């Protein structure tokens, strides 16, 4: 069974600085997707970034980038130039290509951006 672990329950960062959220996962599969979702307080969850396991190049989306280490089964999220609007719960998630649609989420990391 696949599992996703986020070992940092809470983190904080000063506005305009950089922060990295950690995620590790366990799977015996070779083809899968990894995601980072953002859930702001009292607002709906939105997709931040996605990585296909077959791609060696790390995904980037504006200020958000990932460090995907397939052998180590590690998938960290870097947020550059942090903004107050980045304050949210961040979830790392895994999806097996063979079971598309079934997202397996980590426990989440609460990120607070301080002014």
């Amino acid at each position, binding site marked *: 069974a696949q599992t*996703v672990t986020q070992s940092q329950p809470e983190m904080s960062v000063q506005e305009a600085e950089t922060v990295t959220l950690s995620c590790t996962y366990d799977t015996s599969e070779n083809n899968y*997707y990894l995601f980072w*979702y953002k859930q702001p307080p009292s*607002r*709906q*969850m*939105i*997709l931040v970034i*996605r990585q296909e396991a077959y791609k060696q190049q790390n995904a980037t989306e504006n200020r958000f980038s990932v460090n995907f280490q397939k052998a180590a089964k590690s998938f960290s999220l870097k947020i550059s130039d942090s903004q107050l609007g980045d304050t949210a719960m961040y*979830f790392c*998630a895994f*999806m097996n290509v063979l*079971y*598309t*649609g*079934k*997202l*397996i*989420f*980590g*426990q*989440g990391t609460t990120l607070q951006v301080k002014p």
Partner: protein
Amino acid sequence: EAGVAQSPRYKIIEKRQSVAFWCNPISGHATLYWYQQILGQGPKLLIQFQNNGVVDDSQLPKDRFSAERLKGVDSTLKIQPAKLEDSAVYLCASSLGQIEQYFGPGTRLTVT
């Protein structure tokens, strides 16, 4: 484009009562998901529909939970009877393919 709609946003019931949640997915999205998010945890998939057929309901507690998606559009999730441990946020999501999911605002259920 309108997002995923859910109602009600909040519900408080006593244990052993029944409750139903409603979800309207993004227009044209064939796949619909219900997740349960217990406080302090990540969402857990309860059931996945493809049009009006069930793809995966392996984690749905079928003795008390039921879900349907009539006509392949709207969906309802029902709990009968509710237990204290059912207190959670119930999230609905939809997707056009099956990779990128769009989430609704959720229904926060409190069972007392």
